[in-house]
């Protein structure tokens, strides 16, 4: 993976110290990242989930999205997931896709870790 992406993975590990972070190279310089054991709060069961995403080799120039989480996550109030969440097949697995594009992605300051934190926060509050 590129040096920028290696730094990105380290930043994710630092931002989510209680979670396990797995990075699998994609063969083009990018990588697939899975962060497991992320606390998604009391609105969901289970309360923890894994989040996966692809960081392309153009990072940090390219935005990091979409993110994917476990299809088995349910809302405790029985309601459906909100807009921007849909079930898809990704890497041969059925997952929930969280489509949050950053319209003002700034390669000089935005990072994959910041983006993941924002996506998790958004999902928690849906």
């Amino acid at each position, binding site marked *: 993976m590129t040096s920028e992406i290696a730094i990105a993975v380290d930043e994710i590990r630092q931002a989510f110290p209680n979670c396990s972070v797995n990075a699998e190279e994609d063969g083009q*310089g*990018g990588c697939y990242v899975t962060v497991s054991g992320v606390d998604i709060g009391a609105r969901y069961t289970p309360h923890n989930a894994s989040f996966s995403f692809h960081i392309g080799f*153009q990072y940090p120039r390219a935005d990091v*999205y979409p993110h994917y989480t476990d299809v088995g996550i349910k809302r405790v109030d029985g309601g459906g997931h909100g807009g921007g969440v849909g079930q898809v097949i*990704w890497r041969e697995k059925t997952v929930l*896709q969280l489509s949050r594009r950053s319209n003002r*992605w700034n390669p000089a300051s935005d990072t994959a870790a910041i983006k993941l934190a924002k996506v998790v926060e958004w999902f928690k509050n849906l």
Partner: protein
Amino acid sequence: MKITLPISVTIDEALFTKLQAHLFPGDHDEHGAVIAAGIVQTKRGTRLLAREVFLANDGIDYVLGTRGYRALTAQFVAEKADYCSEEKLCYLAVHCHGGIDAVGFSPDDLASHQRGYPALLDITNGLPVGALVFAKQAVAGEIWTTNGVFPLAKMRVVGRRIFDLYASPKSAPKKADRIYERNTRLFGDIGQEILGGLKVVIIGLGGGGSLLNEWLSRLGVGHIVAIDFDRVDITNLSRIVGATRWDALSLLTGSRWKLLQKIGKRFAARKVHVARRVARVANRSIVYDAVVGDILDESTALMARDADFIFLASDSIRSRLVFNALVQQYLIPGIQVGAKISSDKWTREITDIFTTTRLVLPGSGRGCLDCAGAIPPSRLREEGVAEEEKRAQAYVDDPEISEPSVITLNVLSAGQAATDLMMLFTGLFDDHADLGHIMNFARERKLEYVGQSVNQHCLDCSSTKRSRRGRGDSVRLAVSRQTVC
């Protein structure tokens, strides 16, 4: 580090102007500076890429010497050498002499190199160090490397005029071939010789690229590298110069049998091979590299590192990213061309017809595509996603519908681009010419210049630490390590 010869320095216009103003303020005295330079090595030679210029203040950093007239202080040298070492840049000490078009080092200068540069080579971890001495219109250099000491062949200045400086005047140009007689009435045999010495990369040999290919060949450009992975299709014949039905294998691709269609598509001519054929008809002495490849692949992108100019005629956001990186990282001027026909998503009514010609010179405020907003991160991401993922994400457009493309529109942007190259290298632009991005709105028959935007933190063109500008081979291009096509 093994050095390939010849060695030259490339500097953008802003840094050159800054340096010249410091060295020649009109007092006929000696002044000093240091250039921190990236390095790129190819078969064509070694280029040192001026990334920063540190001016030595007279009396503080540049003082009376004990063994020569003036010298950089030990502290200034140490600071800048350490900086170069940290940033993986080459250290070049600069001073000036009198004179106009010829210059050379004095015996005192050469003796000081002998005393100081072996130690500097250690500090810069083997990256070349050296010295440049300027006259008003000349520069000489001595470059020290771990493989020996070599003279500087030339300095190239890249700006609204692209020109080379030497240690002494070059000999008069040869008389140009008679086929260029009408060219030379504009820019002389010297202009024709300059064009003949150029190596130009054309990325994308579709509509715009094929036009550029023919025109540059006829103009007398000496070496073209054409990059495209695509094959000719029958729908290209209205736009690709020189393409024939035989190239498109139209008898097969037009068959009602799917197998024959498949065979036709598989064995149709490559666009770069058509381009080579066209170029050789236009200029039988041209050197031509027809590269079947994708500029997004590392190995293909690296072929452009030693070009004198790059045209981007392939309109994907990812290719713009690589093109912009090549311009800024390797200080190679370039132009992106394109034509766009927009239509209403639902009614398909044509809303806009415009072409763009975006001149990109190295340096901040010189047309950087990223600063201009032409490389949106979200669109970059969309293109980067694999086709299967795109379908799953429902971001993909209907694959049955291709973008409209018409040769006469391609001519508008490519023609401006080819003329820009000619004007840049022959020094014919007026001093006040606006070199900004041009948009030609065909429906309104209106030409507009797009104002230059500058992002002070741009990762490509700015002078921040993170920028790739002038870093040469020490940073990686934003390309795939694997073949993507």
